[in-house]
């Protein structure tokens, strides 16, 4: 076997074997399964880096492990495509996974499901790797669902808690709604092109009618909405924070939720040939970016704030891919993976220190008690707010600049507004949690976390600083752009540049938006120029809207879930039991009714039997007579 192929397949197989090992023999490894699991993933990471180097100095390739489903003219294999896009994603996925694995060893220490946890985590890494390297839509769909399942099982990891298992179930089902759209898209694609292989599909796309392409693209996008938690299917992500925090960092910030962006980037040909679908992507992305940030303004649960922030940042990425700036989208994906992962991990560290406390109102003044955590958190927050020289600045700015230059001014304005709100809510969190008066529960003894947890934080924080420089503005000339753009050069250029505003002016606007957000938070929560309570009462309807998350859950509950359950009960109790079974039993009981009548004839009197018999004989004779 070619060594490239070997490396390619070793990358997913290492975590897969890890899953089997810890899953089946977890109890024999005791506390060491975490170390081994991290080692396996780290090995995958190293191999990914090697593959990255190979690909950047040569060209991509595809490789088939074995034929999976061959039925009539439907042929799909377990096969991988290795090109620049997939190696970038591979390095990101395995890298973040490695860090999170190491962090988890400290975080999950002493949990009775230790091995189980690492087993599932490895399974997730396997699925995610396969998702990014798969070479056909079916395989993509398979691991698309598989990561959803891992998310289900990891969110509901502490299954005794009803809220946790509820959240897992909700995540799975909402994801499934998206997946159904995705699946139908695949069906339509197969019905039109007759194949599911990427290359073959992409060759066909320019030849099929735009309308069909649009429908396919929109259906695929439904899957992305579900997986990447965009409006209106975002409801599962905040609830998913019931899971262990490293899981939130890995799955619900860095990797799985970005699958939607990866998918659109991967299928950029389909999307670029359908401007309408791209518009929809842009719209949904913009709305999500804005409204999620809006909701995050007033939340008090730190993980939920970060979760809404994730939705918002994913919205930015969708904006990018919606305007055809795929490279910028992927760049933001990478930098977001790092700084959002960092934010979650630090939030986990805070939680760990405070024995699981998540409510902002019960924190405060933590800076003095846990310096490393606080500083790394602030680094992450600065990156999120888009303050140079942190990575978020470069990546977010690349997106917003493209939005402006391609003429989507409205989206640009919303984007800048959201950037302001982003900076505000994340620094509100910082000021409330790390500074100011301590509102801690007296029983809780806050302390810095162990080395096992802080070292990953430091690594992530330094990455958050470094990675940004891969995309030094102007983005179109940066290293990252030059590396990745090769893969997108076949895209149909549906939105050419219409403006050419200088990059530094646009950057200035973004930075100002971020800084003003931070300043506003500073004024409100540190200097207390205006009391937040006053604002709350002054803008009561808006506050309520934000605090109650736009009432989306309630609307779904009222409009969909409750009527459906009424329908279900109706179908069962009325239609099934009464109508159908009633009809059947009706036939049966009508027989019973007649037999009660008829059995009177059977009165035991021999004479009447004989009489009946002779009437019958007479009748028979009569029949012969008239015949």
């Amino acid at each position: 076997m070619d060594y490239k192929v070997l490396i390619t397949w070793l990358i997913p197989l290492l975590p897969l074997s890890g899953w089997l090992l810890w899953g089946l023999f977890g109890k024999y490894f005791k506390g060491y399964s975490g170390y081994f699991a991290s080692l396996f993933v780290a090995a995958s990471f190293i191999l990914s880096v090697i593959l990255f180097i190979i690909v950047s100095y040569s060209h991509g390739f595809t490789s088939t492990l074995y034929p999976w489903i061959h039925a009539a003219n439907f042929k799909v294999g377990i096969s991988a495509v290795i090109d620049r896009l997939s190696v970038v994603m591979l390095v990101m996925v395995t890298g973040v996974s490695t860090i999170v694995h190491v962090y988890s060893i400290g975080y999950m220490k002493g949990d009775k499901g230790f091995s189980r946890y690492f087993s599932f985590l490895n399974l997730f890494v396997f699925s995610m790797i396969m998702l990014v390297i798969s070479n056909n839509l079916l395989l993509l769909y398979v691991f698309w669902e598989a990561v959803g399942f891992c998310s289900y099982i990891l969110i509901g990891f502490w299954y005794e808690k009803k809220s946790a298992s509820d959240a897992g179930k909700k995540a799975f089902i909402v994801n499934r709604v998206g997946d159904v759209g995705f699946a139908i898209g695949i069906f339509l694609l197969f019905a039109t092109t007759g194949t599911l292989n990427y290359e073959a599909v992409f060759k066909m796309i320019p030849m099929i009618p735009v309308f069909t392409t649009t429908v396919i693209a929109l259906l695929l996008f439904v899957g992305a909405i579900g997986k990447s938690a965009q409006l209106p299917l975002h409801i599962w992500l905040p609830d998913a924070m019931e899971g262990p925090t490293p899981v939130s960092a890995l799955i619900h910030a860095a990797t799985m939720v970005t699958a939607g962006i990866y998918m659109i980037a991967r299928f950029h040909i389909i999307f670029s040939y359908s401007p309408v679908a791209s518009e929809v992507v842009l719209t949904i992305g913009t709305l999500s970016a804005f409204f999620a940030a809006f909701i995050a303004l007033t939340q008090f649960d730190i993980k939920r704030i970060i979760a809404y922030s994730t939705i918002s940042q994913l919205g930015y990425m969708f904006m990018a891919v919606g305007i055809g700036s795929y490279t910028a989208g992927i760049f933001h994906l990478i930098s977001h993976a790092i700084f959002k992962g960092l934010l979650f991990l630090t939030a986990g560290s805070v939680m760990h220190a405070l024995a699981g406390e998540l409510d902002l109102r019960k924190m405060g003044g933590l800076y003095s008690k846990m310096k490393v955590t606080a500083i790394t958190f602030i680094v992450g927050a600065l990156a999120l707010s888009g303050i140079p020289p942190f990575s978020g600045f470069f990546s977010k700015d690349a997106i917003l600049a493209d939005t402006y230059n391609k003429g989507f001014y409205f989206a640009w304005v919303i984007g800048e507004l959201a950037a302001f709100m982003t900076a505000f809510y994340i620094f509100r969190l910082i000021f409330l949690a790390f500074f100011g008066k301590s509102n801690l529960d007296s029983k809780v003894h806050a302390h810095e976390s162990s080395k096992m947890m802080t070292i990953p934080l430091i690594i992530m924080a330094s990455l958050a600083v470094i990675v940004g420089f891969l995309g030094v503005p102007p983005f179109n000339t940066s290293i990252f752009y030059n590396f990745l753009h090769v893969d997108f050069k076949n895209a149909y250029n549906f939105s050419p540049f219409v403006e050419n505003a200088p990059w530094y002016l646009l950057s200035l606007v973004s930075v100002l938006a971020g800084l003003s957000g931070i300043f506003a938070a500073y004024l409100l929560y540190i200097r207390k120029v205006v009391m937040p309570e006053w604002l709350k009462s002054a803008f009561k309807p808006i506050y309520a809207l934000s605090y109650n998350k736009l009432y989306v859950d309630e609307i779904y509950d009222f409009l969909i879930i409750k009527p459906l359950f009424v329908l279900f009960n109706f179908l069962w109790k009325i239609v099934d039991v009464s109508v159908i079974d009633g009809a059947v039993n009706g036939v049966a009981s009508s027989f019973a009714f007649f037999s009660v009548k008829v059995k009177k004839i059977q009165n035991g009197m021999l004479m009447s039997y004989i009489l009946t018999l002779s009437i019958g004989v007479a009748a028979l004779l009569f029949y012969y007579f008239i015949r």
Partner: protein
Amino acid sequence: MEILFYVFSFIAIFSALMVVTMRNPLTSALYLILCFFAIAGFYIILNMQFLAVMQILVYAGAIMVLVVLVIMLLNLSDIKSFKSNLHQVFIGILISVIMFAEIFFYISKGIQKKPVGIFTHALIKKIGNTQIIGEFLFTKYIFPFEIASILLFVAIIGAYLFAKKKF
């Protein structure tokens, strides 16, 4: 011959009517024997002397003796007739009459089928009806004949079981 036929017919039908109308079972039984004799007479007219003899031996001899014996045994002669349901009597008569009418019409419509067999009166007379029946019974019908013997055997056991004091 014609005269004999009508005489026998009259005796047979009259005694049959008597059988069903007499109140005393014993009287009925005696009329029944008379009826059997008349039927035996028919057989003789029809050249089946063997059957006529069998008729008298088996029916009048064996069966009727048995019946009379039972009547005596149960001492039924002095049990007066049971209250008959008028309703039922009426329907019975009606059905019987209808049935008879139907059969009568059916027969009088006539069955125009030519003789198919070879056993003409002359042949039967020549060979002798007993011999013919015997030959058939022990060659072609040997199997039913044997079955009949088993049936009788079973009947004996059955009758014995029924009449036994305790089941």
